[in-house]
């Protein structure tokens, strides 16, 4: 059964090959890594999971690209060989179907090879799934790349935008915050695991405290007159 190969250049190999200095190679790779990372993080995890699951189920596929293979059902990712051994790929991101793909049964699966962060993964996916993955990757990357260019901005506004990107921490209710601080102080005043009798003081009026894990190793106590607040 012949298989069409879908090749996706996550690392921008063609860019790398065309650039002159090793430093810019490095920078390209850095940028691409971030792009990949953000693209993958924006992918629908359910889709990724289902892809990985279907990939693992149909293992033992060899790829013509490098010597690495999915060796067993259990592992779907193996460390890759160094980049310079890989043949050149088209520029990122490109869906590069071989001609025969269009005529084949869309349900028929083909290997999808993903190079990511020093690992290689090969999945057997049908064409539509592969397209979805690529669209998601494209969408993810284009979003991170295109957005800043669309609106011309000043530095100040750019910084504000960056700081706004989910950087406002979720505020905590005061009453709960005080309780969590009190609890921390209750626990911090005694060393953990010190649950032997001779390290404890009896009675309410003392300042000594006990350390208590939620698992119930030791037990905490505190003089109620202790004002840990304000």
């Amino acid at each position, binding site marked *: 059964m012949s298989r069409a190969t879908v090749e996706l250049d996550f690392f921008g190999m063609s860019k790398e090959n065309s650039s002159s200095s090793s430093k810019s190679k490095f920078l390209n790779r850095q940028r691409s890594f971030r792009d990949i990372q953000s693209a993958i993080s924006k992918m629908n995890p359910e889709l990724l999971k289902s892809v990985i699951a279907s990939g693992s189920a149909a293992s033992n596929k060899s790829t013509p690209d490098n010597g690495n293979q999915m060796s067993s059902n259990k592992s779907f990712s193996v460390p890759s060989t160094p980049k310079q051994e890989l043949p050149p790929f088209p520029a990122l991101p490109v869906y590069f179907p071989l001609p025969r793909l269009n005529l084949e049964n869309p349900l028929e699966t083909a290997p999808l090879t993903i190079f990511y962060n020093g690992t290689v993964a090969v999945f057997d996916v049908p064409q539509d799934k592969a397209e979805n993955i690529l669209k998601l990757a494209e969408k993810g990357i284009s979003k991170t790349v295109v957005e800043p260019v669309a609106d011309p901005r000043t530095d100040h506004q750019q910084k504000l935008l960056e700081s706004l990107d989910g950087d406002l921490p979720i505020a905590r209710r005061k*009453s709960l915050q005080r309780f969590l601080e009190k609890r921390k102080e209750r626990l911090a005043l005694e060393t953990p695991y010190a649950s032997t009798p001779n390290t404890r003081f009896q009675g309410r009026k003392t300042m000594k405290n006990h350390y208590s894990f939620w698992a119930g190793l030791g037990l905490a106590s505190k003089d109620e007159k202790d004002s840990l607040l304000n």
Partner: protein
Amino acid sequence: MNNLNCSGCGVGGGMSDVVLECVMPYIHDPRDRDAVSLVCRRWYELDAITRRHVTIALCYSTSPDRLQRRFKHLESLKMKGKPRAAMFFNLIPEDWGGFVTPWVNEIAESFNCLKSLHFRRMIVKDSDLELLASSRGRVLEVLKLDKCSGFSTDGLSHIGRSCRQLRTLFLEESGIAEKDGDWLHELATNNTVLQTLNFYMTDLTKVRLEDLELLAKNCRSLVSLKISDFELLELVGFFRSASAIEEFCGGSFNEPDQPGKYAAVIFPPKLCRLGLTYMEKNVMSIVFPFASLLKKLDLLYVLLGTEDHCVLVQRCPNLEVLETRNVIGDRGLEALAQSCKRLKRLRIERGADEQEMEDVDGRVSQRGLIALAQGCLEIEYIAVYVSDITNAALEHLGAYSKNLNDFRLVLLDQEHMITDLPLDNGVRALLSGCEKLQRFGLYLRPGGLSDVGLGYIGQYSRHVRWMILGSVGESDEGLLAFSTGCPSLQKLEMRACCFTESALARAALQLTSLRYLWVHGYRETSTGHRDLLTMVRPFWNIELIPSRKVPTVNNAGQNVFDDNPAHILAYYSLAGPRTDFPDTVKPLDPAKVVAA
């Protein structure tokens, strides 16, 4: 003045005033009353004379004088001051405003029938309490200083001494300067009709046991007591006396290494609402004998793990209200769904961020929510901090939770990968399925809700009157789509959003029912907030808390300064702009902005 045929009263002449005066007192709902008052002048006047209760959602929307002129015979008044964000750390400056003084002055002078007063998130001084006590002390039955600040126990002593008819004294979460415990002594000595006393979540530590016991002895109708930290073992005698008690929260367990001692605590027989601070697993069993009677359980301030929660809720088949932290976990929610079929209100707060401080299982996700939706069909209120979420969970709520009237979900930011985002479809399903929804909160992260999803909120939230939205949408387009909907939205709070000032202003104009808008963290695109001028209109006050640095303590325990971005607050007012701005709050003055 007895006009039988007032204009606009319908065919066949009007209703006689006598008839109307008989009917009016039975109309309580404020919206019905509002409609009644708009029929004609005579009906307006009758409503004004007979209206018993008024809630002023924001104290600056009107003035004491206006209130007095319209509702002279008011018996009950509730008002709120600071934005809701004031209950969270470091958002609203402490001196923001909401002073009760002008209101108390008017009450002392004019409101002769006032028996019940509820101030929420306002600044109260001892002099206000003294004036209240001396002018209205003889008739005051209910006093609630709810999340207020600015007063001390001296002010409370005045209340205790003079308000002998007080049925309810409510001080929960107020910031009170404590000088001594005399106020409780005054209350216990001078009062015999007290039913509810609440100083929960205040830091009052100088209350004396003998005053509590005196209270139990003198106030035989005491039904609800919520106190600050106080060793439970000392309350054995109190519990024996206070036999009518149905609700108790507070206390403390300072000898958990001797759990056997706590067997001596016998709770009163009618106790059905309970919350014991610092309760641990090994003393939990003192609750078991009456757990099946419990209708309300407060586990916000206990030291229990996930498994302990499961064990406890399984013993509470009659539970209607549960408040706890996310340590309850999905497993706890599954236990709840199985055992507590009568559950109406569930609040799950955010526990500690540090891994080692909470149970490993202490996370709530779609798994727990789906179980909850399917198991607790009578649920009306859900507030939850989740670590993970899916559209399916929200769809389940939309399908099963037909009585839901208040839903708030916050997606915590600990997990980098969330199972299923954006939540567009789930939100749509929830809003269209829960037809009784009136209050809605959604706090996500970038990518959590697309512009389409934000548009869905506008489209499907027909009866929602209050919303808080955090980190939703992708662009101004989403906000503008949202604001063409939400026909009932009166109060909107937004945080950490990506919208420009121009879009915010336009949205405010488009939301037909909007009377209050609070925004914290947005795209400041214009110098001097110029773009906000778009929403300048009569009776619409626009205020800013400019961006500032707030002192805080970071995780390493160091004192640092946090960047706090600008807040926008806009609201309708009949009283014109405020006259009591602190330095941190500035009105938006169009003339100044244009000149800049």
